[in-house]
């Protein structure tokens, strides 16, 4: 992925980017509601601060304190902000008048929200669904390969994307990134990811949800027909769809998952007593 960058990185820059890559994985280590990922952010930035500010202790301390400020975004998408942050600290070291500390904070803060939104939606609604879908289908047959594939696909894409974005953020600069956000590219990626997620969720509803009923209805003339067969004649797996969209309707009505679970338990037990299931 590095070779897509035009700029040649020096060994010390590469070393610092590697440091940021690995230490940014520790963002949950001191995650609190006060600073969220802020305290780890400063730790990731330490070698950068030492490199760009060198002996200028005053600016270095200012940058150190500034980087402990509140920060929170998706842990993989954070790579873009960190790379950008590296480039900005370097600019500030060259010309502290032109690039103020506030300006760097503002750029960080303005990227946090959109990156969290796109990161959460791509990872939780798309990549995780696909990785888990593959993992679930193998693991439910007792095959441990499902677990390794899940961690490999989901964790692997997480790390690869972080590394890519980190390098991208450092090399392309603020203007290009702003332009990309304004061009609507984020919406396009999000649409594509949502479609992919929806296909996977649809297939998983079919393979994972099980609901069946032996209920029979009299068809007249002594003939009986299993109710479920009639439904399945309309579209196979009809009951699964009814169940799923029933749940979706409840969620839209702001039901908490725990209440839906209770409801399903009651339906299951009452239904089994009445012979519906």
């Amino acid at each position, binding site marked *: 992925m590095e070779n897509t960058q035009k700029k040649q990185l020096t060994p010390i820059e590469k070393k610092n980017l590697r440091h940021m890559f690995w230490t940014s994985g520790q963002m949950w280590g001191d995650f609190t509601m006060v600073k969220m990922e802020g305290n780890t952010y400063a730790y990731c930035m330490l070698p950068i601060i030492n490199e760009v500010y060198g002996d200028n202790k005053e600016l270095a301390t200012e940058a150190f304190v500034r980087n402990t400020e509140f920060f929170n975004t998706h842990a993989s998408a954070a790579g873009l902000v960190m790379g950008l942050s590296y480039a900005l600290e370097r600019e500030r070291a060259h010309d502290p008048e032109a690039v103020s500390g506030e300006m760097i904070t503002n750029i960080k803060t303005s990227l946090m929200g959109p990156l969290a939104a796109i990161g959460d939606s791509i990872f939780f609604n798309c990549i*995780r669904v696909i990785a888990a879908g593959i993992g679930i289908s193998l693991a439910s047959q007792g095959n441990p390969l499902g677990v390794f594939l899940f961690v490999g696909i989901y964790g692997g894409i997480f790390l690869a994307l972080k590394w890519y974005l980190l390098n991208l953020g450092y090399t392309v600069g603020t203007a290009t990134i702003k332009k990309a956000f304004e061009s609507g590219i984020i919406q396009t990626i999000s649409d594509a990811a949502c479609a992919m997620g929806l296909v996977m969720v649809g297939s998983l509803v079919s393979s994972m949800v099980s609901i069946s009923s032996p209920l029979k209805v009299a068809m007249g003339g002594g003939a009986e027909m299993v109710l479920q067969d009639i439904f399945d004649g309309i579209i196979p797996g009809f009951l699964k769809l009814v169940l799923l969209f029933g749940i979706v309707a409840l969620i839209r009505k702001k039901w908490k998952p725990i209440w839906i679970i209770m409801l399903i338990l009651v339906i299951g037990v009452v239904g089994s007593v009445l012979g519906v299931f």
Partner: protein
Amino acid sequence: MSVIQAAIILTIMNYVISVLDNFMAWDATWRPLFVGWLTGLCLGDQKTGLIMGAQLEAIYMGISAIGGVIPSDPESGTLIPVAAVILTHTDMSAAIALAIPVGTLINYANTLCSPIQLAFLGLYDKYAAENNQKAYVRLHYLYCLLITPLPRTLIIFLALWLGVGNLGGINNAMPLWLINGLDAASGMLVAIGFGILTSMIWSKKLGIFFFVGFVLAEMLGLKTIGIAIIALAIAISIFLIENGIKQAAGSHAEPVKEEAKEDSLF
């Protein structure tokens, strides 16, 4: 294996998972699939762990830590039910039904312990203001290895030791109609995670793709991998088409380069 032995083994396992997560932040190793498998492995019943992990992953699929807040903890919500099934032969459906409430309770207990985490937070600001980098880094690792995982580890130990041991009795007292009912319910419970997920990503524009996936699996009987490849192709098509429309609309000559780069991500 006695309950206390198992509790100690699983507590150590839980600590390892917490630390692994604190060093990777990748959301992969605290998910039910991984935790279920590892719990099964530690207790000598890999298969149960895998099967339950798969079902619980489906339930937890829609539940994510958006903005750092999560309604039910997937890690303990998997560890404790799987341990209960393997150690006390609790009915699997009953254990799965209990998973989300257990995860929520553990979450509450964890939140109660958060003052411990907040207590040393002021030190970060102090060390930063002094530009004392060594002390700052030391404090950071103290958090990663001890302060953050410790309260949770103790809670899990107590839950396993005091809670799981008593589940066996309850299980023996369950009548057949209740077990049948829970069985039927557990097949439907997995729909909750999918329901949450569907309600989050559903849009009028894209909703039809849900049915594409459903039909591919239900009517054509395709395997998950095959469907994933078709899904990827659909995603790429949507990206190229929408992108093409935007380019044709003109006015975005510059971002084209960016788009080509972003394209290589998927």
